[in-house]
């Protein structure tokens, strides 16, 4: 299989480079969102454990899912870069995680 080159794709701007990468490797966008989600969630969770001795898992999960939704929304501003499937998945994830966070008994925090 031969890959399309940057010159063939006429990738002259940063947005076109991103579109070129996502067209040639469809896993690029979900991997980007997944890594971003994992970094934000694990970073904030272990930061809480280090500073307070106790981590709020659902709080960090909600923050990470909302940040992923914002990132996917910003990526969707560029035409043809991200399928709306990923924006909708991150939107559902943020609603579910915020719903779990808000309906918990939070007497321990």
């Amino acid at each position, binding site marked *: 299989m031969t890959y399309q080159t940057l010159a063939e794709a006429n990738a002259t701007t940063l947005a076109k480079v991103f579109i070129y990468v996502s067209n040639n490797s469809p896993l690029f966008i979900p991997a980007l969102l997944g890594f971003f989600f994992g970094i934000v969630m694990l970073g904030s969770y272990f930061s809480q454990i280090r500073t307070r001795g106790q981590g709020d898992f659902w709080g960090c999960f909600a923050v990470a899912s909302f940040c992923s939704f914002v990132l996917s*929304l910003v990526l969707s*501003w560029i035409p043809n870069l991200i399928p709306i499937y990923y*924006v*909708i998945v991150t939107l559902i994830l943020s*609603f579910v995680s915020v*719903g779990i966070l808000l*309906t918990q*008994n939070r007497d321990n925090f």
Partner: protein
Amino acid sequence: MVDMKSLVIGGILLGLFAFASLSVMYISLTDNNPNSTLLTESALNKTFYSLNSTLMSQRNQSANQYQNGTLMDNPETSFGGLVMKSVVGATNLFTGFFSSIFILITDLAEKEIGIPPLITTVFFTILTVLIIFLGWRLYRSGQ
């Protein structure tokens, strides 16, 4: 263990969060990428319209109550009116928000992710039974 108070307050806050998220999404997409198919997604549009109409009706109701209770020369007062109207308003807000968001999540999960309708129906049934039991516990023990 979740109690009825947390569920109602969390449901209302979740509705406000969903309304704010969808508003930001529509405004930013209209400004930056008006041809996006997210703007024409029927499930999102339906939910946003439902949340908006619930909030608008609550705002009009509150404005009317404020006018009747404070601005009139002879304010209309009724026995228990404040308590009953507050409870009814909060319950309407909770049910409107909760049903809108639940329908959005199940619609999108079925259409976009491909989750079978049987699973969402079972989940909806469990949630309904849970809310009925929580309402019963609120009536019996006040929690």
